[in-house]
């Protein structure tokens, strides 16, 4: 299975810490508090946003259907802890700071199951905090 995503860099993590989008931003708009990429995201009718929450010890939704080749933005809000969002098959991971929305763009190329999990130990149910994308052709 060949998958593609935009992995998050240290810069992206910083963006998340500042409560801004993690999609393709540059330093200049970040400092200005205005994201060109964010505007592009909003203008693009093809880019679907999927709202998610992370709360001990559950992602909501846990199962997310996607179409192969579809670009989507995950907009994840942590409600109680610095959870992690790790999608090993896509090489994506980021911290989810409480009270902020972290955006991650992914684009699975082929059908199949892609697992995601919280990878910041968050307590007694941490091992149960995971989910999956169900990618159809």
């Amino acid at each position, binding site marked *: 299975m060949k998958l593609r995503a935009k992995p998050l860099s240290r810069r992206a993590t910083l963006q998340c810490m500042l409560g801004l989008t993690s999609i393709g931003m540059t330093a200049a708009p970040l400092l200005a508090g205005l994201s060109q990429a964010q505007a592009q995201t909003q203008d693009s009718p093809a880019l679907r946003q999927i709202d998610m929450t992370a709360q001990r010890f559950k992602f909501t939704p846990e199962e997310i259907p996607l179409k192969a080749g579809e670009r989507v933005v995950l907009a994840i809000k942590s409600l109680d802890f610095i959870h992690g969002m790790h999608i090993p098959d896509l090489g994506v991971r980021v911290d989810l700071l409480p009270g902020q929305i972290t955006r991650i763009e992914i684009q699975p190329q082929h059908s199949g199951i892609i697992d995601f999990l919280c990878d910041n*130990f968050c307590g007694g149910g*941490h091992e149960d905090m995971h989910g999956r994308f169900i990618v159809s052709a």
Partner: protein
Amino acid sequence: MQRRDFLTLSALGGGAVFLSGLAGCAHGSGYASEGSFYFVQLSDTHWGYKGPANPDAGVTLRKAVAAVNALPEQPDFIFFTGDLTHTTDDPDERRRRLTEFKSIIGDLKVRNIRLIPGEHDASLDRGTAYKEFFGDTYYTFDHKGIHFIALDNVSDPGGLVDEEQLAWLKADLAKLDKQAPIVVLTHRPLFDLVPKWDWATRNGADVMAALMPYQNVTVFYGHIHQEHHHMTAHIPHHSAKSLIFPLPAPGSQDKRTPLPWDAAHPYQGLGFREVDAEAASHTFKATEFPVVASS
């Protein structure tokens, strides 16, 4: 009967296995010979756990202590590779569990006991309570020609070796000969065993890169609640069974849920490990033992 013969006969949990080095070198070398010794690895005791995966959780650790004490020759030291206690949000309860754990292992005959935390012990308070009871979360010691490095890849809730510790590790390694026999003890695997189950260390590749120039390194770890063996180039990694409940084989199912308790075979899949060590040949031989002491 020599000790090694006894081990072969009594290891009901799976027998003796050479883990690294030149296996033939260890045969015929008596236990009492210079540079030869053995230690015991215990892991993932999860004291305080209550759940269906082990309805006997309140006595399992004590049975393990009794099993170790029943060994005909006592090890030079005992090493606990983390998750001593089951996690809790309550700091007072965490300390109560650590107090009880420390009291129970106080019944071990061997007084040379060394430990590292697991994420259940240390991740929620970055090791604060653990340090109150057991001191540093990472350290080194030398024993009969082998350099032991205990690493902490759990006090950061992200499951990594932080930059300060990584610098400390590199400084320690820099003092060693590239042929020096080195044993690394850690809780989480230092390689990507099953990332979707969080069976990895986030920056394990950095740790392995630091270790890679050294030709005689062996890693022992816990976390995955089962025996497992893996090679990263010339460096072997060996995980230990737990003392609370077994977990499924790596990646064998969607979820890393504990294997169900089998009332007909209580303690199945649990156990501890002896490691025979020969510094001169850098040979390690593991013998797996069940929880219940053999008669």
